[in-house]
């Protein structure tokens, strides 16, 4: 790239103004929302998922997720009777447009919605060299895209494959747990559009949240518990073959 002296003189103040906006930041959007009162997670009931792909479409609409990239997606597992450790997993276009027909009487099939687990001890935030990704005080793993360099360390670090590099912005991108919605008292776009209630936003700091009763009375698991990520996406009725 060739920059003439004239161009440089024009660009410098522009860059200064841009940086000024980064320094100043923007005021809090929801004045009544107190971060210290919440600790967000998600309840995913595998036994209720019908694989309609509503969550995937809603997420892409709500968050302008680029075509071919996913902040949430639905996988269909096929576990053969004799191959419990090697399930066949498909997720064509994230499950957005449905799935091919499943064969009756050929092992078992089920759907597993996947998304960021908003880990309390997340591997992805620990590897960021510039402090661009972090766990907010209310337990949501977020990315400061003005600070992100796009080095993709975090993309590699996430054991659940929940991050990607945005093809146009060239910075890391991921599920924000619809932070712009939950701070306004709404639920996430995926929960709002789930027709069967297979996904439920959960506030673990709210003693009246139904999540507490649910966790006591159901067989709930997190994905890859052996990695000690502190995952907060709680799966009900999860098959042992799910990775």
């Amino acid at each position, binding site marked *: 790239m060739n920059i003439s002296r004239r161009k440089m003189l024009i660009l410098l103040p522009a860059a200064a103004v841009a940086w000024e906006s980064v320094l100043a930041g923007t005021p809090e959007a929801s004045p009544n929302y107190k971060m210290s009162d919440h600790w967000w997670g998600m309840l995913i009931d595998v036994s209720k998922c019908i*694989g309609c792909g509503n969550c995937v479409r809603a997420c892409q609409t709500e968050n302008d997720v680029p075509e071919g990239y996913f902040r949430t997606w639905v996988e269909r597992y096929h576990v053969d009777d004799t191959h419990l450790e090697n399930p066949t997993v498909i997720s064509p276009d994230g499950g957005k447009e449905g799935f091919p027909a499943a064969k009756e009487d050929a092992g078992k099939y089920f759907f597993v919605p996947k998304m960021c687990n908003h880990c309390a001890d997340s591997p992805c935030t620990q590897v960021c060299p510039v402090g661009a990704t972090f766990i907010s005080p209310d337990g949501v793993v*977020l990315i400061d895209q003005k600070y992100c360099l796009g080095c993709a360390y975090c993309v590699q670090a996430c054991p659940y494959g929940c991050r990607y590099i945005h093809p146009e912005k060239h910075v890391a991108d991921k599920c924000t747990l619809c932070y712009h919605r939950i701070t306004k008292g709404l639920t996430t*776009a995926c929960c709002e559009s789930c027709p069967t209630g297979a996904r439920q936003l959960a506030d673990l700091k709210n003693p009246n949240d139904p999540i507490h009763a649910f966790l006591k009375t159901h067989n709930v698991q997190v994905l890859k518990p052996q990695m000690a990520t502190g995952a907060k996406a709680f799966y009900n009725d999860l098959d042992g073959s799910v990775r």
Partner: protein
Amino acid sequence: MSALKDARHLFRFAGLFVLAFLIFLVVRHYYVPKCFGQYGHYRGAAIGEIAQLPVKFAGHQACEDCHTDVVAKKNTGKHAHVNCEACHGALASHANDPSTVKPVLPDTSVLCARCHTASAAKPKGFPQVEPAEHSQGLPCETCHNPHSPAMDAGGAK
């Protein structure tokens, strides 16, 4: 004394080092945002910026405030717990400006089939049909009202 005299070039070097460090501190002071470190090793204002992104799904409460008749109908049937925007799509634009932004009526042949097409992967209790043989090409709303789909709840609308 003579030893110190020989070390003079070292003092000069140390001076330069201190000066460079001071310049670094000054530059750092101006370039690191004030809110960096407010909550942790990141820019605190980033949280507020993410919280300010535009909302596209209005949320069922916004729909229910106006469309009380549909809510009443929906509450009588199996779709009582299906939120409006699960079928009608993101409509915050309509909720914010109901008179100019008119939602498009969804196509039931696509919409109903998305959830109710039979598949061995779906939970057994979930109502499923083979659309082609179930309706013989008729649109679903010939027999079912999508807001309260049981047959005895009456046909279209």
